[in-house]
């Protein structure tokens, strides 16, 4: 290994170990699970108390047959012989949750202390009762009515001949989600690492020892490494959870795995990795221009790399639109949009090649640009470079 590569590796290791600690991650997971469990227990207790079956007194049945008023979610009691005053007293005392007065099949009143969640169930129940009543009234057979209600089955066929499997679609969605995790990690750590070094006045001694490009390369790789570790960790946890769930429910997990196209999987990995490297270079360049993260207006620029992920959701609705086709190859968006196109529609063989080539070239240019901005921006204390100056450095890179 030559000196420069060794130094990049030293910086990469430093940045990685500075922010990433296994013990903290495991502790975090244990806390997450513990608090999840506590939350679940408390939630269950609160829900069981709040969502208990309500006691509803029926003061009038209208045209309905009282025998039909039976439900698992609602407990009805026939109180047609009691006075409304008595029922209201019971409602105030809390022994009743509601008083239902049915005037006709078109009108009824429910009296409660305040708004309650079980009202939805009551509405649904009354609707069903009314439907039954109207079927009898108009002498319509229940099976005929069910046939009328049943919708038309619409089968889909595509020009491409066959559609990607659901497993591939899930894979594309997971790839974008994991990229999003890595993007957020990159955002958080690059910001902390670089603005922290500026504020702690560490910059000058490091920049006197190594070339700024070497330093920024190590940073980009180290922070990308942290993002990928989180992706692998949470991806692994997710996989373990799915396998556990599958074993519990007996779902055909093995068959679903067999549906995954290994070529697509490889493409997703390449696009994700290059995308994360490009974004981290962008983050590093912007972070180097920020003097005080509490007041800098440039902090907003750090949100830009999140846009492609948002566009990817739009791509789901029409993966063949011209805009989405172009964005699928455009280097700033391809890492998120091309995976969607690959699983949603027919993509020409050259599109992934062009997208990967452009993405790799852009990641490289962003790396150089970040190095230029870093070299100058990191030494600027109390003053931030203007957008004009940053564009100038970008062109020089």
């Amino acid at each position, binding site marked *: 290994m030559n000196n420069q590569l060794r*130094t990049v590796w030293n910086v990469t290791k430093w940045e990685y170990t500075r922010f990433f600690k296994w013990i903290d991650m495991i502790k975090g997971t244990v806390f997450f699970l513990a608090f999840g469990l506590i939350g679940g227990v408390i939630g269950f207790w609160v829900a069981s108390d709040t969502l208990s079956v309500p006691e509803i007194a029926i003061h009038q049945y209208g045209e309905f047959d009282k025998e039909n008023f039976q439900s698992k979610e609602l407990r009805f009691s026939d109180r047609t012989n009691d006075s409304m005053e008595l029922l209201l007293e019971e409602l105030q005392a809390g022994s009743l949750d509601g008083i239902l007065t049915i005037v006709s099949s078109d009108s009824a009143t429910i009296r409660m202390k305040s708004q309650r969640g079980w009202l939805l169930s009551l509405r649904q129940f009354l609707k069903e009762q009314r439907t039954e009543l109207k079927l009898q009234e108009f002498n319509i057979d229940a099976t005929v009515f069910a046939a009328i209600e049943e919708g038309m089955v619409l089968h889909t066929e595509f020009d491409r001949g066959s559609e990607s499997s659901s497993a591939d679609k899930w894979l594309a969605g997971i790839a974008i989600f994991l990229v999003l995790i890595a993007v957020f990690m990159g955002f958080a750590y690059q910001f902390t690492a670089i603005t922290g070094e500026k504020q702690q006045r560490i910059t000058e001694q490091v920049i006197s020892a190594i070339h700024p490009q070497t330093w920024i390369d190590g940073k980009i790789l180290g922070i990308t490494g942290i993002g990928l570790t989180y992706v692998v960790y949470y991806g692994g946890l997710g996989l373990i959870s799915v396998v556990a769930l599958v074993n519990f429910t007996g779902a055909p997990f093995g068959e679903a795995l067999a549906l995954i196209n290994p070529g697509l999987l490889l493409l997703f990995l390449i696009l994700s990795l290059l995308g994360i490297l490009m974004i981290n270079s962008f983050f590093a360049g912007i972070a180097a221009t920020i003097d005080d993260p509490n007041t800098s207006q440039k902090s907003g620029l750090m949100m830009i790399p999140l846009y492609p992920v948002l566009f990817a959701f739009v791509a789901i609705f029409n993966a063949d639109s011209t805009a989405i086709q172009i964005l699928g190859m455009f280097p700033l968006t391809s890492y998120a949009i091309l995976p969607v196109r690959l699983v949603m529609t027919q993509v020409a063989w050259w599109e992934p090649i062009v997208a990967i080539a452009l993405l790799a070239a852009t990641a490289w240019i962003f790396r150089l640009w970040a190095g230029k901005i870093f070299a100058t921006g990191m030494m600027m204390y109390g003053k931030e470079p203007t957008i004009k100056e940053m564009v100038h450095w970008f062109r020089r890179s």
Partner: protein
Amino acid sequence: MLKFENVVKKFAKVKAVDDLSFEIKKGEIFALLGPNGAGKTSSIRMIMQIMEPDSGLISFDSSVLLGSKVNRSKLGYLPEERGLYQDAPIMKTLLYLSSLRGSDPAEAQKKATAWLDRFGILDRKAEKISTLSKGNQQKVQFIASILHEPEFAILDEPYSGFDPINQELISDIIRELRDGGMTILLSAHQMQLVENIADRILMINHGKELLSGTFEDIRNNTISDKKLIVSYNGAAKKELFESSAHIRNSIQTAPEEWEIYFSENYSLNEVLKIMIEAGTVKSLKTSDVNLHEIFIESFKTGGRVHE
């Protein structure tokens, strides 16, 4: 070791370094002095390759070159703008900063252990930097700048944050490093310490040289190489000092004590006559001016020497 020839560096319309030239010899302690904004930091940053001069030439001895480029592992730097990774352990920080200068990790660990021991903080090597006092953090910073045993080290304000005992310790270490063959460029505001340690001194202001040479050369060449300290019984008539052509400056250092600086073409008899006229003299002593006084005086007069 280093030649700094006709170097110019501008920031917007301000010339931070204005056609400045000097040379640092191998194995010497060279002090670069000047008031704030004189151009010291810009000069140092250009030497450290952090910024490039607009014109002029900075050339190094072959011992710090690798081919035609400066070998950064042969340079050491304690910048004025300094800090450490507050959340990182002390030893780990030293090893990392040393690795950036190309040090062998095992060697660096041995040396770091010895330095931490000398500074009395070895038992805290596994603690985070943030747990150290400001003075102890300065010690770690100082160690980081020389741990890799550079050929040429720049120490910008190395005494900053230290008590007098540790300032003396730093001076002793700087001398030892020089005696071991290291060339050192020193910039500091503690004139007494610089006076005692520097082999040669360069004073600059507005990016230009004011004075240069050994301390003796500078003192012999400055306007105020002699002064008298006179004590009176009661008040002295200061207007007599101010009106005399033989006295260039007079400073009241205590209610009844004055420092009298001579003019260029003074007559000692005349000066003594004025002193006696000014009041009842209680005591009188001569004194050489120190670097602090030369520093102050040079910047008042723009560094003029005997004509």
